[in-house]
């Protein structure tokens, strides 16, 4: 495997292989000294044109735990401000000798574009509203860890909120359905893409109608600027209809799981403290982020695929 840019590029075998490889990485993170020399001499550059806390930090931590060197590209203090193009920026960093770029950009398709300009591996850490494959891997791993299910067949997963602008939703829909789950999208019509008829999902506009039937309740962040753009009338109305309230927590199945990719908007989609929810996996999602990204980096850079794909 050379790049990780989308879930469909990964396929079912790649997905399950990476989840299994993550078990090895999770064990390393349990050790008193959580560091292995596996990627000694490799360099990983993070190229973030959009803000990020957990994705960037977990990639850097993952690289360091595998003994890779890291380079952090900070747009606000870079020559991008002097007018350097993306292509020249990538070429410059490539010339310094990097083995992988971790890329986040507001435009769809940038990871594919960059992979034509460099021989390094490309990991998509979010491109516009398109894909965020490592978040989907983290979420699948977290569900697998909590349920001990090797595949998700028979599992019903609701993704609630701003589907239209969410790359997390798109990657997760692909990953969850690939593993056999049935996915229901819950959102007001204004926050759904214009046409989801070709997506392998069902759609509901009422959270209360499905909340007692789902095994996983996946809450998405509502970006506050969506109100200014006219997608929701008021944040209060949105949170009343689609927010996770105390009442809705009580309506959940007793073993249902609550997830959120972060950052959370407390008081909007999360009307409660997530630690009040018995089966909240939000902290596991963050903790597993490092292990999953270690598996991705090792798979792409560990010279020779450990999953038996094309080397």
């Amino acid at each position, binding site marked *: 495997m050379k790049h990780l840019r989308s879930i469909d590029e990964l396929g079912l075998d790649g997905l399950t292989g990476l989840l299994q490889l993550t078990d*090895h990485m999770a064990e390393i993170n349990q050790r*008193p000294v959580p560091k292995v020399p596996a990627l000694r001499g490799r360099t990983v550059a993070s190229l973030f044109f959009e803000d990020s806390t957990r994705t960037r930090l977990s990639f850097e931590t993952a690289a360091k735990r595998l003994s890779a060197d890291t380079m952090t590209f900070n747009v606000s203090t870079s020559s991008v401000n002097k007018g350097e193009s993306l292509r020249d920026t990538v070429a410059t960093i490539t010339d310094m000798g990097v083995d992988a770029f971790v890329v986040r950009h507001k435009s769809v398709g940038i990871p594919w574009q960059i992979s034509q300009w460099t021989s390094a591996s490309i990991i998509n850490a979010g491109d516009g509203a398109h894909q965020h494959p490592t978040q989907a891997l983290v979420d699948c791993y977290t569900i697998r860890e909590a349920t001990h299910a090797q595949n998700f067949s028979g599992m019903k997963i609701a993704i609630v909120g701003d589907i239209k602008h969410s790359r997390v939703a798109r990657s997760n829909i692909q990953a969850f359905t690939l593993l056999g789950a049935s996915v229901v999208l819950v959102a007001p019509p204004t926050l759904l893409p214009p046409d989801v008829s070709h997506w392998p999902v069902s759609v509901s506009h009422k959270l209360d109608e499905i909340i007692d039937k789902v095994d996983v309740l996946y809450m998405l962040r509502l970006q506050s600027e969506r109100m200014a753009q006219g997608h929701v009338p008021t944040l209060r109305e949105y949170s009343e209809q689609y927010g996770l309230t105390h009442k809705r927590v009580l309506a959940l199945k007793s073993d249902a799981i609550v997830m959120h990719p972060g950052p959370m908007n407390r008081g909007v989609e999360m009307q409660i403290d997530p630690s009040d929810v018995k089966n909240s996996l939000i902290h596991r999602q963050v903790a597993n982020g490092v292990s999953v990204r270690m598996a991705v980096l090792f798979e792409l850079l560990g010279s020779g695929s*450990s999953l038996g794909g094309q080397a």
Partner: protein
Amino acid sequence: MSKSESSSTSREAMTAADVRRAIVRIAHEIVERNHGVDGLAIVGLQRGGTWIAEEIAAQINNIEKEVKVPVGALDVSLHRDDIGMRPVSLGAISNIPFDLSGATVVVVDDVLYTGRTVRAAMEGLNNYGRPRAVQLAVLVDRGHRELPIRPDFVGKNLPTHRADEVSATRDGVFVTPNPQAKP
């Protein structure tokens, strides 16, 4: 390894009974060398060494009934110097649920060959603490060392050709000459 290795092309170097006797002897030697089992821990290397480690520990617990020797498993694939030449065996995860600091750790593997696995294991063990001493037990020593490593406990010394394949299971030890190799 598969049963096909015990076909006519391969040579049986140890029978199942030989393997069982060698494990019993190694268990006695470990107890004798360490004057008991105080501070002793057994760590099998994934995957071939783990079942031998379990059997050695069971034998030791049989000899010295007062104490139960802790047994762990170590996956060295991420510590190797030849990463990429061997894939990670998915599912063969390290499991050392005890502190190794101050312990006498007996590393157990099936076949000792170049010594690179054992080197990686010694490095990996240090992630779990600083053992007082590390000893090495192997079912088969087939020679061809590339590093200054020697075993403390050996089931059988088995001279081989470099190209031979050696498999060691409960059913016995089998040597398969590689037909592609030059004589």
